[in-house]
Structure formats: C-alpha cells, structure tokens
C-alpha cells in the first residue's frame, strides 16, 4: 500500500523534474555574455541542476503528503459565504471611502493619482461588462473605443478650442458610432471568431492612428491637450488677464493638488454614472435581452427578439463609456499617443471583467483594484513583478473559476402572495 504510494509519488516527481529539465535547459542553462571577442555563451548547468532538484523533491514531498494527484484545489480555502445584503453594505462603504479618500490626511499626490488610474479601469471594466458580461459578446478590441474617445477630445479641443464639457458627450457618441461600425460586420459571429475580429478592429484603430500623421500626429501623438477647468475657472496659479482661477474663486491658497482632486471626483462621477446606467439597463427590456442573448440566441429569436438591435445596442453603449473614459484619459494626461492604446490594455480590461465575475459590477471594482494596485505595490520587487502578478492571477482562477463575485442578482422578483 505505502510502497505503491511512494512509487507513484516517485513517478510523478520524476515526470515533473523531466518537464522542469526540458524547460530549464534553454531558459536557464545558457546565457549570452559580452566578452572581448564579441558575444559568447556561458553555460549554467549548476543552476539547472538546482532547479530540477527543487522541482523533484518538492513534487515528491507534495505527492506524499497529498495522497492522490490533482486535488490541489482541495487545499485552497473555500470562499466564505456572505449573507445576502452584504454586497449592498460593502458597496455603500466603498462608495463612502471613495468620496472621502482624497480629503483624508494620508492621501498624497501619489495615492490620488493611483486612485484615478484605478477608477479609469473600473469605468472601462463597467463599460466592457455591458458587452462581455451581460451580452456575452467576447470583445478583445475594447481599447479602440477608449482611443476614439481620447483622440476625439484631443483633436476637438486643440483644433476647435472646444471645452471639455462639450467634448465629453461628443467623444462618447463618436465612440458609440464606432461601436456600431464594429458591430455590423460581426453580427453573425460568436465566441472565438468574434474575439478575433474585435482584436483586429482594435489593432486597426491603433495602426491608423500610428500612420496617419497629418490627422493624429502619428507615433508622436498629440501633446498639450487642454486640461479640464472647473466649469470655466482654470486650475492655474495665475489666470489670463481678467480670468478668475479656481483658487481665487474659493479664496484658497493655490495648490497643484486641486486639479488632481478635481480629476479624481470627475472620474468618480463618470464611473458611477456608468454603474448607475448599467444597473438601470439590466432591469429594462434591453438589459434582459442582453442577458438572454448571452444565454441562448436561438431562443431569443424564437421569442421575436431582434438579435441585431440587441447586439448593436450592447456594442454601442459599451463603446460609449469607453469613449467617455478615453476623453477623461486625454485631459488627465495632457498627452496621448497610439502607444497608450495597445492590445495589452484591452487584455487588462477584459481580465478585469473576467476576474471580477462576468456581469458583476462589484467584481469589476475588486478586480480593477487588484490588477492596478498589485503591480503598483510590487514595484519594490521590480524584476519579479510580472511573475508574482501572474501567479496571483493563476491562483485566483483556480480558487474562483467563475470570477471573484459569481453571484447574479435577478432583475425582477415575484413577490409572494397577492
């Protein structure tokens, strides 16, 4: 009995060690060195031996203590069950915290800046949640709408001297238009095929922006984009002659923090608007049709629902919020270039939605905070940052394959009695 167990463990450990060996030889075993005679190769087989040894004994020990193979999951603690209503309480507390955060004494410039970044991703996550989480349309090119919003604001503000408040809705509408343009050719596609086309669409937008120099400035991007003002009162030490600045208006000492705190509240309001809109839409026929479409498109058609309209509305509204976020991003950074809108951004936003639990608003907040804050906190381990980050993602997906918040709140309830 024990003999077979040890033998099995030995076999398993041997197999793991073999895999480690195959991987380690090319990855660790050779190292390019720069010598006097040009490039040379240094071998580090002692490192390989150490690595393989650690894998062998580690796996052996694990196999012996664990008993059977493949139940790593059983060793992870289960997610605690929260009583119903916890979500609301937590959301309320988080909202209070979000409102009070920049006014707390501990909040310095760095913290508020990071919080703004987190909120941008929360908003993007909420926007993409409409398309991916509710309507079930896997969109890998969401960053395109973010880019459309950002460039719309930048170009309108610079060329036509339009204010941020006027550009914001235009940027949203323009992004929505692009959402519909993307939506039409992909109406018949689902799943993997849809993902590929949306991925291509995202790249197309980026490459056009990169190459159309006269229009978008090409790789140089657009700089000195106007910063937002406080409804006509600029955040500046000295206004133009005859102009009142923000700090004069309120009789405050000038501080560069004013603008950052204003930006913080601006993105907070925009994100909350996205959230309110999505929650509201979920309880309307369109929102229910989105979810029904995710569940079964054929049944939707048999019930007389026009899948074209449902899909296009999801694409357009999701894109619109991406556009709002893009306009905000442009005014916050003051500089945009195609580099900010690469595929990795789409991947991060999608990861936020999937990690948070498809369709869950609360999940998006937690996942966005995690995905933005963890790399930030790990800055001290700069070399291993991405490794630790990847490990954390793998662990979460093992632990909660349906995402952090898998609970789905019904959009309508039948009250008992009556």
């Amino acid at each position, binding site marked *: 009995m024990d003999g077979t167990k040890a033998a099995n463990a030995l076999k398993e450990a041997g197999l793991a060690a073999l895999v480690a060996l195959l991987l380690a030889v090319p990855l660790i075993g050779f190292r390019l060195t720069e010598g006097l005679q040009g490039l040379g190769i240094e071998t580090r087989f002692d490192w390989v031996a150490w690595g393989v040894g650690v894998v062998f004994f580690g796996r052996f020990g694990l196999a012996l203590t664990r008993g059977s193979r493949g139940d790593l999951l059983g060793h992870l603690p289960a997610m605690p069950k929260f009583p119903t209503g916890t979500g609301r309480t937590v959301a309320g507390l988080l909202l209070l915290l979000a409102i009070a955060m920049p006014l707390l004494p501990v909040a310095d410039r760095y913290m508020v800046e990071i919080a703004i970044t987190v909120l941008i991703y929360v908003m993007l996550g909420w926007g993409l949640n409409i398309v991916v989480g509710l309507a079930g349309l896997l969109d890998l090119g969401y960053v395109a709408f973010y880019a459309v919003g950002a460039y719309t604001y930048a170009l309108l503000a610079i060329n036509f001297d339009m204010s941020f408040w006027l550009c914001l809705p235009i940027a949203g509408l323009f992004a929505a238009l692009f959402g519909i343009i993307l939506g039409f050719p992909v109406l018949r596609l689902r799943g993997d095929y849809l993902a590929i086309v949306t991925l291509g669409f995202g790249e197309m937008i980026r490459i056009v922006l990169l190459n159309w120099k006269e229009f978008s400035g090409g790789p140089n991007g657009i700089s000195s984009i106007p910063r937002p003002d406080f409804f006509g009162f600029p955040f500046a030490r000295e206004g133009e002659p005859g102009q009142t600045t923000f700090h004069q208006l309120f009789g405050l000492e000038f501080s560069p923090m004013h603008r950052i705190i204003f930006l913080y509240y601006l993105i907070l309001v925009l994100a909350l608007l996205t959230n309110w809109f999505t929650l509201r839409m979920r309880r309307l*026929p*369109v929102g229910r049709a989105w979810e029904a479409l995710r569940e*079964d498109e054929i*049944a939707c*058609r048999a*019930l*007389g629902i026009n899948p074209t309209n449902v899909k296009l509305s999801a694409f357009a509204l999701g894109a619109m919020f991406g556009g709002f976020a893009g306009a905000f991003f442009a005014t916050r950074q003051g500089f945009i270039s195609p580099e900010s809108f690469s595929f990795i951004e789409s991947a991060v936003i999608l990861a936020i939605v999937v990690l948070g639990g498809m369709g869950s608003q609360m999940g998006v907040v937690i996942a966005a905070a995690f995905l933005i804050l963890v790399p930030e906190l790990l800055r001290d381990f700069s070399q291993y940052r991405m490794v630790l980050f990847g490990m954390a993602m793998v662990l979460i997906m093992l632990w909660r394959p349906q995402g952090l918040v898998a609970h789905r709140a*019904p959009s309508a309830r039948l009250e008992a009695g009556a």
Partner: protein
Amino acid sequence: MSLLTVEHLTIRFGGLVAVDDVSFAAADRKITAIIGPNGAGKTTVFNCLTGFYKPDVGRMMLSKDGQEWLLERMEGFRISQQAGVARTFQNIRLFPKMTVLENLLVAQHNVLQAASGFSIAGLLGLNSYRTAERAAIELARHWLDRVGMVHLANDEAGSLPYGAQRRLEIARAMCTGPRLLCLDEPAAGLNPAESAALAALVRRIRDEDGVAILLIEHDMSVVMEISDRIVVLDHGRKIAEGTPDQVRDDPEVIRAYLGAAEDEVAS
C-alpha cells in the same frame, strides 16, 4: 377556415430532401399533431415555420382576422413578433442563468421595449413603463399559475427539474401572446403522470386561450388523446392525414411505424 396553410413545402440539405412536397393545414383553435418515425422531417417543418430554415419550394401562410402573413418571406424573429408563431424546442432552450420570472419577461420583450420608449422612459423611471412592467409581471404570474410554478418564480431556470423546465418553456412561449403555438416533443422525458398533466395543459390552452397548436410528439397516448387532426410524415413525405381514428387504422401509417411485411415488399 384554417389558420395555417402549408403548401408544397420542400426543403433540401445538399442532396438530401428532408421535406418533400408536404401540404397540410392547421385549423384555428385546434390541435394538429405531426407524427412520424425518427428522421421523418417533423422538426425540419417546425424550423421552417419558425424561420430557422428557408424552404426551397413552398408557401406557408398564416391568416387570422383578415390579416395574412407569408412566413417564408419573413425574417426569423419577425415570425414570432408579427405573425405570432411561438415555439418550444425538442432540447429545451431556456435562459438557464436567469430566473423563471425573467425568462417570462424576456418573452414579453417587444411589448415592454415599446413601453419603455426604447429604454428612455424606462431609464427615467416614467410611470407608463412601470405600469407596463407590472402588467408583464402579472401575465407572467398568470402563466406560472397555469403551469403550477408560481412558487418557483424566483429560482434559476437552469436549476429546475426537467419536467418543470418543459412546462416553463410552454409558459414562456405563451407569454409572447401567440396565434399559433408549436410544441416540439413536449412530453419527451416526462413520466406518465406528467404527460397526462401536459395533455391537460395543452387542451386548456386550445380551449381557453383560443390558440391553435401544432404538436410534434412521439408519445402516442398523448397524441391520440388530444389531437383534433394528425398529419403523418415519413421520409419527408406526407403519407396520411386525418382524425386520430382514421390515422390509427391507416395501413400506410402502420407500415411506416412497424415496417412492411416481407411479402408485401416483394409484391
């Protein structure tokens, strides 16, 4: 006057003729059953009627109260939306992650969508939309009551037992307010008691709601008990049509179901 008239319906998949020149009619407020051995083309006829396939040849006309709809010319979703043809599926197609009530509200999408002013009135929370939503919930409650599932209204549809899912699918189809209800093997997988309850439900829909029913079913006890008229298909062709008694004694039908005796084949 018949509600549905199907004439010379032919559907080919490549070289295979799935439905071959089939004509039949379904009377309003009657139950018309389509029976036949496996692969006879019954579900293909349904898929054609509900717009999932386009026929190669033939005409399908729905007419009621002086209005006419040519189903073969309509886009899939409009057949339910405008002509009022609702259906259920052989392999149940509910929205499994949504609750029972939500399933029934999705079925009333077009009514609610109009009432929500394409979401604008709904977003603003206007009274007109709230009234419409309350009415929709009441209709859902009515149908849940009819299929005996009011207590399950807030449960996830996918977690229901099989029989309840079948009944929910019928309730969902009825929530679209159809003129013609197409049931594709509603009794499949049900035990005898559930089958009997289903037969009673279908009969009540015919008698009380004034809806015509087209029924595909293998359970002959159900078919013979509730059908007003039966159409028999075999290998894509119509081989018989008539009342249950006529069809039961038809030699062609018996041959299709039981196979021809060897001497008959020789002759």
